[in-house]
């Protein structure tokens, strides 16, 4: 507890936003933290969770927020993020499991009732809308049925006269009588049977309530956490080769370059997101991405990397066609971040 409360540059560890590090991914699960990250620290990330009632839609996602390694780097360097590494979740108690399943059962029941009521209301609305059409259909069908009834009665009278043919004809006539019912009563019967069937459906949406079972896990052993978070910590010799001060993470040279450029752009006040759809590394926004278009497509290049003039043309044309400035960003031998903006001037 004392370690958690240790002050880091005026901010306690409890005040820092916790980022869960698992399987090479960095996620934030608290909605307040996500809001703080975006509004106060200009860290946008990507929401990757599906909404509980709309699992198929992909326009707006829910928690967790997935962070890129550059965003985590900036957060740790500026002391507003703390990394939770090798997290092991505690196994819930029996009471917690029971409470969880009863809550699930209750919610599923409520959803079923809600859905049933919604269907009824929809059906009623449809009936009211199509009342006239239905009535005329019912009338015509009733007339046809009445005609059939009369025909059947005539047949019966004829058959009664001839006793030798009564056995087969009576059977057929009785069957036809049974089958002839007015449409209005039959439709109400079908509606009622439908209702009865939904009422009698034994809780299709509800999960089976276990008695002494723990929540399902990926492993057979109920004591192990739901997913494996054991990560190998890099060796100290490898850490020493890198100038970065985050011991839990290892960086490739390309990642180091990206982190430095990201950090520099972030310190200039930009909001930064991924730019893969525009053929770049980052998109730099002057404000929140929901309110502004990006100004720059940042393409990260190494200082000694070779490019062709055609590359310059392709960067320029693509970005200009989407009304953004393409920028080649690099870090020179003096560890200074340098930018060159490409601006299309025309073709002959």
């Amino acid at each position, binding site marked *: 507890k004392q370690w958690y409360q240790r002050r880091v540059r005026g901010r306690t560890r409890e005040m820092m936003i916790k980022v869960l590090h698992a399987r090479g991914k960095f996620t934030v699960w608290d909605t307040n933290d996500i809001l703080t990250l975006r509004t106060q620290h200009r860290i946008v990330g990507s929401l990757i969770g599906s909404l509980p009632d709309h699992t198929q839609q992909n326009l707006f996602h829910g928690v967790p927020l997935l962070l890129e390694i550059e965003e985590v780097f900036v957060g740790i360097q500026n002391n507003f993020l703390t990394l939770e590494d090798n997290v092991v979740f505690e196994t819930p108690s029996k009471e917690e499991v029971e409470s969880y399943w009863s809550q699930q059962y209750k919610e599923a029941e409520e959803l079923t009732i809600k859905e049933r009521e919604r269907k009824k209301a929809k059906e009623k609305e449809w009936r009211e809308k199509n009342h006239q059409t239905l009535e005329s259909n019912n009338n015509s069908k009733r007339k046809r049925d009445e005609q059939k009834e009369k025909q059947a009665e005539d047949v019966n009278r004829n058959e009664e006269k001839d006793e030798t043919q009564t056995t087969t004809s009576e059977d057929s006539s009785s069957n036809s009588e049974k089958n002839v019912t007015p449409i209005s009563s039959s439709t109400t019967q079908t509606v009622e049977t439908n209702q009865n069937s939904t009422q009698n459906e034994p809780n299709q949406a509800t999960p089976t309530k276990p008695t002494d079972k723990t929540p399902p896990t990926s492993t057979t052993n109920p004591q192990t956490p739901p997913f494996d978070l054991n990560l190998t910590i890099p060796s100290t010799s490898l850490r020493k080769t890198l100038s970065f001060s985050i011991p839990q993470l290892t960086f490739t040279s390309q990642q180091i370059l990206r982190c430095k450029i990201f950090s520099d752009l972030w310190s200039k006040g930009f909001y930064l997101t991924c730019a893969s759809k525009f053929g770049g590394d980052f998109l730099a926004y002057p404000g929140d991405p929901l309110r502004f278009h990006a100004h720059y497509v940042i393409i990260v290049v*190494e200082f000694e*990397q*070779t490019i*062709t003039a055609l590359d310059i043309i392709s960067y320029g044309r693509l970005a200009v066609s989407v009304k*953004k400035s393409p920028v*080649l960003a690099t870090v*020179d031998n003096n560890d200074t971040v340098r*930018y060159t903006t*490409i601006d299309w001037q*025309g073709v002959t």
Partner: protein
Amino acid sequence: MDNSSDNNDHKQQLDLITKLVPLYTLEGPILHQVYLDLVIVKRWYLIQPRETNGLCYLEGKETASSPAQVIFPLSARKTIKVDELFSLFSKLQHKTTIESGQNATQQSLSFLTLGIVDSDSTISYYRIHEKLVPPTE
């Protein structure tokens, strides 16, 4: 300027370029092509070939009132290192002079224009700045 003095100026510049071509076997012909494009097609006010630090380039003004610019010809297939691209600014810095019958003035280089020439004689002009420049609306 009347037409005869224009023609004389152009002849002088072309003579200069002709002298540069054997010295810069790759960039020389491209320099010539870009020069002709700027003079004849785009009708720039003033164009002069220059060389410095092993680089040949053009220096000119689009109109009489516009600022002087550096146009660096480049083949579309040429490979260039990123550090060389950045070093263009430092190599051409303090070398921008425009002599137009007035005192030559040295101007610092905030941007330069690349004239990228393809094998079918298409020339694409791209201005590069040594800083972040937001897009124009």
